[in-house]
């Protein structure tokens, strides 16, 4: 099937005093209609920045380059300002990390959704209002017709996140990008929101990109999984396949360091030693080399690892794997 979104060799750089700082380096992935992709990685791995470039809302100083950012037969890089505006919110919508900061405090929920609808559709206020009630209902916002007259500050965190979801649904986009959409919520509400997003995605046939630092969520929500480290894609493939058989030392480390039901005193969490590298300090080698227990001497320092195939559609960028296969992994 033809992918709706295909990102080829996307890089994002910021000009710094000592040359450009690269926060996303040579990232490629694609997404078919109606499928979901989880992008996982630590803070600072470039996952949010990569998503913002898909909406053309990266900070003004960012230098974005890509061979192509294909979206439904067009290249997003070549859009005019006005065409961009037509894509944002209407074809690709985003749910932001912190709904408290992402919603305007002085404008009612109703008004914000109505504005989002009317930015793309010529319709009366009443029609837009009806649509607001409808999408709020889909997002599980109770008693929408009444309570949408509230200001964001009058709602709980969970409800605010439902407003953010309703806002994203307002124009029935083909792709929703959820940027750490559940990070600031209680675990129980987190589960509800994840379930809701999955259901909506299935029901409406949307594609979904779910950005998270929680690999545990990947299995629940993602068809595909892309693991990022320091601006680089290190492992990419079907979520089930990758999680069942993680082949990059970073993915393996990440899974071992996250608590599961099996964690216990005899089966303790193993942290990944060291700190993520400063953006821009990686140079030409393997991005994970400074923390990698199995780095290949003389190779990881100098050469950027290319993709090796670890299973059907399952790719891993690791010199150790390329050299020794699974035997060499920690």
């Amino acid at each position, binding site marked *: 099937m033809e992918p709706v979104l295909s990102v080829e060799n996307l890089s994002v750089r910021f000009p710094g005093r000592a040359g450009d700082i690269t926060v996303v380096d040579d990232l490629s992935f694609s997404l078919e209609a109606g499928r979901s992709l989880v992008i996982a990685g630590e803070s600072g791995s470039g996952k949010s920045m990569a998503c913002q470039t898909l*909406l053309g*809302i990266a900070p003004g100083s960012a230098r974005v380059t890509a061979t192509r950012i294909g979206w439904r037969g067009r290249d997003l890089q070549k859009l005019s300002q006005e065409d961009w*505006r*037509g*894509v*944002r*919110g*209407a074809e690709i*919508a*985003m749910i*932001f990390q*912190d709904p408290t*900061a*992402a*919603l*305007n*405090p*002085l*404008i009612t929920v109703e008004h914000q959704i109505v*504005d*989002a609808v009317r*930015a*793309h559709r010529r319709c009366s206020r009443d029609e837009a209002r009806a649509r607001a009630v409808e999408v709020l209902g889909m997002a599980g916002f109770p008693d929408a017709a009444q309570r949408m007259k509230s*200001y964001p*500050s*009058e709602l709980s965190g969970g409800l605010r996140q439902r407003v953010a979801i309703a*806002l994203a649904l*307002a124009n029935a986009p083909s792709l929703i990008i959820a940027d750490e959409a559940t990070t600031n919520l209680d675990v129980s509400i987190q589960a509800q929101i994840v379930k809701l997003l999955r259901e909506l995605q299935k029901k409406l046939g949307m594609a979904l990109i779910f950005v998270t630092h929680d690999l545990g969520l990947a299995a629940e929500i993602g068809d595909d999984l892309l693991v990022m480290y320091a601006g680089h894609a290190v492992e990419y493939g079907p979520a089930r396949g990758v999680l069942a058989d993680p082949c990059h030392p970073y993915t393996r480390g990440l899974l071992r360091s996250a608590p599961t039901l099996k964690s216990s005193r005899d089966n303790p969490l193993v942290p990944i030693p060291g700190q993520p590298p400063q953006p821009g300090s990686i140079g030409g080698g393997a991005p994970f080399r400074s923390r990698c227990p199995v780095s290949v001497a003389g190779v990881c320092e100098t050469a950027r690892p290319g993709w090796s195939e670890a299973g059907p559609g399952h790719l891993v960028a690791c010199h150790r794997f390329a050299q020794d296969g699974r035997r060499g992994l920690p």
Partner: protein
Amino acid sequence: MGSFIIRRVAQSLIIVVLIAVTVFLVLRLSAGDPARIRAPVFARPDVIEQYRRDFGIDRPLIEQLGSFFLNALRGDLGQSFRFQAPVTDLILQALPKTLMLAGVSLALSLAVAIVLGSLAALRPRSFWGWLSSAVAAFGQSAPVFWTGAVLVLVFAVGLRWLPSGGYNGLSSLVLPAIAVTLSILPTQLRVLRASMQAVLKEDYIRTARAFGLRERRITFVYALKNACLPLLTVIGVDIGYLLGGVIVAEVVFAFPGIGELALVALNARDYPLIQGITIVTASFFVIVNLLIDLLYTRVDPRIRLERS
């Protein structure tokens, strides 16, 4: 919310009363004996005594204060020495013109601050950014009496476009309003520019952009609403400067408002009139700040929530 309004109104009333008492007492202590001021210079003691009885200042201070308040409640602020007319009438004649001058200046200043400040915040390195800094620096350094005099020289004496003073309809309002505006604009302009710059970096602006809203709507609705909150606070403080500026401008332009009246009253040591004018202008300041406080709760739902 209701109790908040009642509390706030009650506070304001108390402040107005305290102001009235203070003005009354300070004038009694500092202005000298009004009977001696009014009486002919070499008047006999019994004539002076007669004046004292007429003004009621032969009675104890507390009694004077009491009757002053009783009269004030009935709208009687006493009799002007200089004009031989009720102070209330004199103030009511002058006040509308002053309010008009102050209102026009404030509106003009806010309009310029909002438009120019927003443009300067959006494009700090453009012509607008430069113009906004220049206007702010100029307005801050030029006192009202100087800008007033320059405006008269250029537009009244030189170009003969506008009257140099007095009051003959709206054209007389233009020059004094510009002079006052220039004096209160700098703070408002700087505050709005800074708050707009901060607001434009907020997440909710990025959200608005991410949902394809038009830039004009983002700037002048989504951002401006938030950026105006600090401006509202500044207006409350600025009312003092505004009244001061208006009074100076009235004197420079011989504009028949409260300020001019106050100057005449001061020169004539017409202390019932001074007293009336001080109380009325101070109350005006208190009322405006009360209104701004109430307006705040209308504009910002977070404050409404906090206070209810």
